[in-house]
């Protein structure tokens, strides 16, 4: 055994937070498309990550793992939204609508298009094209094979182009 054997521990949590908070926030904001939702999902993501940090067993796994948590929470949020929207559609109509961050026109366009994509394709696309993750990392994050990740991005691109 290597006398200076290393543990391959993930970095201290605060360092992980410092390194990845930006890209995670960007990812969440893009996936939820809403400022308040993004704030909540962001908080929840890091709290969950902290609680489960002891189970993450390698340093390389950190990034896709964080994206996976964020991605799952975004999906939950989307589901909740849909459910709530169905139930209290009229309240929302005259109640306050969550403030949408000011983006320029192109971005708004993209946002709307992204939102219409199926969850997995959307997440894969955001991670790949806007987050710059490797397909390997996306596969880990989404819990699918590398090929499926690749296919997801491809299909998403195809749909976007079609629009």
């Amino acid at each position, binding site marked *: *055994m290597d006398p200076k054997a290393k543990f391959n521990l993930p970095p201290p949590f605060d360092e992980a937070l410092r390194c990845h908070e930006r890209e995670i*926030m960007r990812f969440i904001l*893009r996936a939820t498309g809403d400022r308040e939702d993004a*704030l909540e999902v962001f908080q929840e993501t890091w709290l969950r990550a902290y609680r489960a940090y002891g189970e993450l067993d390698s340093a390389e796994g950190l990034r896709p793992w964080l994206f996976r948590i964020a991605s799952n929470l975004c999906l939950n949020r989307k589901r909740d939204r849909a459910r709530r929207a169905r139930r209290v559609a009229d309240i929302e109509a005259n109640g306050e609508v969550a403030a949408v961050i000011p983006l320029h026109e192109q*971005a708004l366009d993209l946002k709307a298009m992204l939102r219409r994509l199926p969850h997995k394709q959307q997440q894969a696309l955001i991670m790949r094209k806007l987050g710059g993750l490797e397909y390997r990392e996306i596969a880990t994050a989404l819990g699918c094979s590398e090929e499926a990740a690749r296919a997801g991005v491809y299909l998403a691109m195809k749909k*976007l182009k079609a629009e």
Partner: protein
Amino acid sequence: MERKLETYLQDRPDIPDEVIERLLREARPMLTSALDRLRRPLIQVAICDSPLGQLFAAKSAQGLVALRFMESDPVENTMQTLRQRFDVIEDEQLADEITGDIESLMRGDPAAVEARAVDLSLVESAFQRRALMRLRRVPAGSVISYQALAAALGKPTAQRAIGNTVASNPVPIYVPCHRVIRSDGSLGNYGGGPERKLQLLRAEGFLVDRTRRLPRDAVYGHLGSRIFCRPTCNAVRRAERRTWLIFADAQRAARFGMRACRLCHPA
């Protein structure tokens, strides 16, 4: 459209950095206070190349939490247990500290090992913690039997419980579980292997031979009266076995604050 979309996606992140920064500034205080409520204690871990082989060590702010002989105990398991309860970071300096402590112990100077605080938060029961803390007071160069340790804790029949406690000692060497032997004078087992137990005891001046019986000039110190005797003394034979601490030689017993028996004149 196709070309545009492709380049757009690749070259122009649509959310300006200021927006992200602004959101983060808003999110951070909330997150920090929520995290502070969940925080686990911090520990440092290291692998030490000690004279006793590779050791895995973990230390909290309170003291040494765990020490493992790496060849007999896979680190992964320990690490998993630790990471459930602590935030773990690597620390090279800890390796040097522990190696230094053990090197001086093996040269016959137990001061550093004795001085280092231990944190028994991995030990579940209060009785076990009490037993281990009591065991820490058994000085280098002496041994105690499972039974004697049980008696010293006021539970003279709890030698089995003591056996379990000592066997699951999270911080061997620092909590000197190698100084616990069987009542018949044989050395018994050890987490790092009986050879290591022998090695440690010999380094502390307790010169056990290969047959793993007590050394020839060992004396029995009575915990109650603080008198020490030769093993053949009538007093030893009469008194119950469980109340004795066995020293490598008379000097050590004297140094521990015991006086020689006036019947058998040890030393």
